[in-house]
Each structure stands twice: as structure tokens, then as C-alpha cells.
């Protein structure tokens, strides 16, 4: 999207700014829910492989915990690096 276009947003009446903010909220909710679904799918796939029981076994449960924690830490780190690159703060190696 061109910046000149984004500039036009300042000219929108108050009501439209509210509408835009609501849209952003909605996208963030959808994104969190998708992330949640994707995280469950990943940790289930990596940690659960036997189906002799209906309930999670101890070692499966702790695997899922570590998987989820690790992924969240990873995701935060990626977010920081991504933000740096978006701001042009990246340096070469």
C-alpha cells in the first residue's frame, strides 16, 4: 500500500477511524486464534504418537508444555528481529 494512501486515512472522519481500529482489533483476534490452533497442531504432532490411551500420558504432557513454551519464546524472538528489519535497522554480518 502506498504511503500517500495511508495518509488519506488522516482525512477520514472520526467514525471511520473507529471503524478502522475495530477492524485491526478483529484481525488481531483472528490472528491469535489461528496461532493458537497452529501451536496445538504442531505440539500434538511432535509429542503424541501412541494411541493406547484416551488421556495424555505424563511424558506427552511435559513434551507439549516444553513445545508450547519453546515456540512462544521463538515467536517473540522472531517478532523482535522482524520489527528491526521492518525499521531498516538490520546490519550485515
Amino acid at each position: 500500500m502506498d504511503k500517500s494512501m495511508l495518509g488519506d486515512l488522516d482525512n477520514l472522519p472520526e467514525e471511520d477511524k473507529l471503524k478502522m481500529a475495530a477492524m485491526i482489533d478483529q484481525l488481531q483476534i483472528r490472528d491469535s486464534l489461528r496461532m493458537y490452533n497452529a501451536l496445538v497442531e504442531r505440539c500434538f504432532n511432535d509429542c503424541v504418537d501412541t494411541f493406547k490411551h484416551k488421556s495424555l500420558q505424563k511424558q506427552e504432557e511435559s513434551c507439549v508444555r516444553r513445545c508450547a513454551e519453546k515456540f512462544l519464546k521463538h515467536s517473540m524472538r522472531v517478532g523482535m528481529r522482524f520489527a528491526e528489519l521492518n525499521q531498516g535497522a538490520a546490519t550485515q554480518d
Partner: protein
Amino acid sequence: MAANNNMPSALDKEQIFGMAEKEMEYRVELFNKLTHTCFNKCVENKYKESELNMGENSCIDRCVSKYWHVTNLVGQLLGSGPSGRPPM
């Protein structure tokens, strides 16, 4: 988020619709991922028969149950509180 006076404004109503829509999208996506994941884990993919055999059926039941537990467990870790319901 919804109005307290039981007469939601236009913007509130749009948000209620939007939330309900996201909630349903989430449930559909959960169901779809669960279905595909348990098919991969439990069903023989040479398709020699079109029926599910007994072993596949019991694997599916347990897979759904375990997937549900993982959903609740991850939901707790993500901070949706002590109970095992999805974070909405």
C-alpha cells in the same frame, strides 16, 4: 465490549457479529486441523478398503480425546485461566 444497556449501537453490533464470526472460524479451524491430524495418525493411507477397521476406529477416538487435552493444555499455558476451555 457489548453495550450494557441491552441496546447495542451500530458499532457494538458490528463487533458482536465480528466476535461471533471469529469464534466460529476458530472452531471450524480447530475441527479441521483435528480431523486431518487424526486421519494422518490413525488411518492407513493405501486405502485398501473404504471402511474404517476396528483398530482405526479406536485410534480415532483416542486421538480426538488427546487432541482435545492438548488444546486445553496449551490454552492454559497461553493464559486463559485455570479451567481447560479455549481462550475466548
